[in-house]
Structure formats: C-alpha cells, structure tokens
C-alpha cells in the first residue's frame, strides 16, 4: 500500500478551482454583490464628477476606471478572501481540508483560480458599463493590453497570498470584515483611487507608495489614460519597471508570509 500514488498539485489544484467556483456561485447574493459593487462605485463617482477635467484632457470617469479595476483585485482577492477564509476557518472547511492528503499549495491554487475568474468577470462588467455610460475608451495598443494583463496577474497573485497570510489576524468571520474594510478604504483613499493621486498631500503619497495598490493604479492609468497625462504623474512618468518591481516584491512577501503563518485551525486551537 506504500506505493499508492497520491493526487498531485495539478490534479488537486484543478479539483479545488472547480470546487471554489461551484461553491462561490452557489451563493447568488455574494456573486451579485462582488461583481456589481465596483460598478456601483463607478456609476456614483462617474455621475458626481461628470464635469471634472483632469490634466491632459482626461475625464474623471476614465481616471476612476483605472483605479476601480485596481481596486477590484483588492475587493475580491484581499477583502473577499480574508472574510472568506475566516468563515472557512470557522465552519470547519479548512480543518477538514487539513486532514486530507491534499497538498497545501493546491488550496492556494484554488483560491487564486477563483479570484482570477471573478476578476475577469468584474473587469468585463466594469469596462462594459464604462463604455456604455461614460464614453470610456479602451486601451489602443497591444503594448497597453499586455501591460494590463501582467499587472493583473501579478497583482492577483500578490493580493491573494497577502489575503491568505492576513486571514490569521481576525479571530472570527465577523471580526474579519470589521478589520479588513478600513484597511481597504484607507488604501483606496491614499493610493489615488477615489482622489487624484498627484493632488494628495505628500506624506499621504509616500505612505501609499509603500503598498501595492498605488502601483497597481498607476500601472492601470498607463493602460487607460493617454500619454498626455503621463507628465502629470508624481514620478514624472508611468514608471512601469518600478510597478513590476514593487508588485513582484509584494507577491514574494505574500508567499513567505502565507507559508509561515497560514494554518488550518482557528487561533487558540492547537
């Protein structure tokens, strides 16, 4: 019996992605809220600031879309995941999985897969509504689309791993949303999502520059805003290599923290 072959990371990972999707879409209220929330914000902000013009002849909704897409990753892969994991730690999902021969990495693959699908759906809806209501213009070059894709992928991986690691902080699922929501809001306010980044106080800019959301938003602006806006950036340009570096580093930090701190059982049960 010693030679029985265990299901590998790929087989278990595929099974996990499949399970995560079915499980998530089994709760229609959560689905609608997750997919519609960023759109709701876009509609509200887009309608309030309809006359605002930004440097380079950019409309606020065009500017806001870039930030909202970046925030979408934060909502689903970080906020959503932290709450989801606290829930799963409480209802016994994680404990049960920890007792199976499933490789730990397959579990992370499942989460990243779920949030990748949600992100794609969220972006598609956001862009569709943006075009229909606010005359949003899509990226006009292959290079911009390429930038869009790699920033999305690295951000998703980074935020998912950070979410996995951070999920050990709240003790219950109720505490989870109370703890994670202010973090998400503060990051959005300081990283140039709700307000224009170059108009923020310098200390706030420096604070936000430590975290990935600011760089994600900046990368997304390079995709959605015209070159004429580039000179209005605080750094004097899009700084894409720096975006890649910071996001990549955060993904690495997330991986290290997730491996070090993630656990199947609730705190105090050891």
């Amino acid at each position, binding site marked *: 019996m010693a030679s029985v072959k265990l299901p590998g990371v790929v087989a278990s990972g595929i099974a996990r992605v499949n399970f995560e999707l079915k499980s998530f879409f089994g*709760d229609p209220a959560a689905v609608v809220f997750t997919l519609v929330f960023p759109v709701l914000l876009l509609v509200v902000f887009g309608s309030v600031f309809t006359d605002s013009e930004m440097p380079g002849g950019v409309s606020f909704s065009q500017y806001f879309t870039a930030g909202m897409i970046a925030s979408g990753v934060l909502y689903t892969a970080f906020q959503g995941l932290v709450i989801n994991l606290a829930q799963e730690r409480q209802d*016994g999902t994680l404990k049960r999985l920890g007792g*199976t*021969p499933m490789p730990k990495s397959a579990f992370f693959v499942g989460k990243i897969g779920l949030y990748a699908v949600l992100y794609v759906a969220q972006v598609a809806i956001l862009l569709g509504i943006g075009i229909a209501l606010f005359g949003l213009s899509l990226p006009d070059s292959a290079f911009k689309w390429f930038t869009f894709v790699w920033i999305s992928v690295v951000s998703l991986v980074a935020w998912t791993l950070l979410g996995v690691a951070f999920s050990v902080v709240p003790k219950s699922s109720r505490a989870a949303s109370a703890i994670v929501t202010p973090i998400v809001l503060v990051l959005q306010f300081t990283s140039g999502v709700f307000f224009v980044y170059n108009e923020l106080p310098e200390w706030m800019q420096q604070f936000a520059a430590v975290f990935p959301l600011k760089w994600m938003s900046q990368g997304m602006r390079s995709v959605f805003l015209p070159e004429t806006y580039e000179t209005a950036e605080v750094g004097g340009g899009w700084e894409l290599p720096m975006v890649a570096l910071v996001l990549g580093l955060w993904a690495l930090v997330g991986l290290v923290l997730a491996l070090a701190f993630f656990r199947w059982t609730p705190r105090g049960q050891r």
Partner: protein
Amino acid sequence: MVKAYGTFKAVDGLNLTVETGQLVALLGPNGAGKTTTIEMLEGYRQRTSGELSVLGVDPGKAGREWRARIGIVLQTASDGSDVSVRFLLSHYAKLYPRSRSVDELIGLVGLGSKADSKVASLSGGQRRRLDVALGIVGRPELLFLDEPTTGFDPEARRDFWGLIKQLHREGTTILLTTHYLAEAEALAERVVVMNHGRVVTDSSLQDLRARAGDMATVRWVGSGGELQEQLTAAPADFVTKLKQEMGHEPVGLTVTRPSLEDVYLELVGEAAVGVSVDG
C-alpha cells in the same frame, strides 16, 4: 502523553494503545480531554510532552501519505453548505489516492434521497452522516470519530451505529469519543473511560459489567417499619436467612445491582477526587 494549556493540563499523562482492527470508545464527561486527545492523534494539536505513534508515524510530523490512510470525523462542521451532497463527496474523492465511489458512499450512509440537495438543507442527523461519508471517502485504515451522534434522536443513533459496525466488520480500525455510555456499550469491544485528562479505566465491557455485578443491595422494611439496607455479594443467601429470621416474607423486599451507568458514574466521580488531591 501530556497536553497543557498554560498551567491547565487538558491531557495529563494519558497512556493508550489501540490494536489494528479494534473498535475503541473513549468515554468520558464533557471536558474530560477526549477531543484534545483525539485531535492530537489526528495531528491537529501538538502535544506538550510524551510519545505518540499513529500507524507508525508521529502525527505532529506526518505527511500526505499518512493522511491518505486515516479518516477524520470532526466534532462540529458546517462546511460546504452551498454545494450538493454529491458534488461535495466527489470533490473530496478527488483528493485521495484510492477513493470509494461516490454512489457507494451515498448508499452506505443512506443519503440517496438527498444526493442532489444542497448540504445546507440537510437535517442534523443527515449532516452527521455526510460527515462520516467524508471521513471514509479515502478508504481509511484508521477512522477517528469525535462525538459522532451528539444531538441524534434514538432511531437515527441506532442507524448510525449500524454503519459504524459495518465499517468495523470491513476491517477499519476505529477510535471514537462519546459521552454516551449506551453508545460505547452498543459499539465498542473496548471502553476507555477518561476524566480530567487521564484514563480512569481501560477494559472490555465484560470487565465493566463484571464490576457492576460484584455487589448487590438488598432493601426491605424492618419489623419496626423502618427501611433496612444491606450490601452483599451473595443476595440469595442473605434473603433466605432474612426470611428465616423474620419468620415471614419481608415487606418491600428488593434486590438491586448497580447498572453499568452506576459503575461509570462512580468511576468518573472517583477520578474527580483523585485530581483535586493532586492539585
């Protein structure tokens, strides 16, 4: 084996060996240390000190191969509520190397009529049977069950016992915790009574019953109308003598032996005194 939380010792010098193929019940009141013990054996909790070997491996350091050989039914679970019974089982089947077929599992735990219902719609007893199905999906050599029938009605409990006995007949080694004496009596060939983190007694049920049968209490109403009581190992002899002495049939005569439950309560009570002395 010892498990301490600060100065509180949840498991205090436990010594336990389970042979392959046995069905052993860990019996004790709430707070006796049963769950802490079983979760150390399952690898969820780390022991403070002592030696531990499950299927030849230390659960604290065990790998995936080891987990493929054990099955775990946790004390409480409410996971998977948004998917169907069949989907949840088929998902877990994919995580094990030689799983049971999902249809076989559903039949085994009697959830045929609920196979395509959402897990959230199951009753407490059905949910528990699903938990067992999830515990045995990987054909474990060793199955842990932590208070599997808490909250069951008597009929559901009897059905559930049938399932456990069947698994045992198929060769699965089973360790279950319970605070129901009747459950330990109905299922296990060996009962380990625990209290305050220690084994109070470890014996076959015959031994426990024999202990129960040692002494009997004879009660009757004396000639002055007062209630009389005598503890004796030979009640028949005593009653014969009593009748001769009184010259007539004793009024209100009863002969009682302590039930298994009395023995159990006495054991658990004894242990409580023992621990308070140790401080």
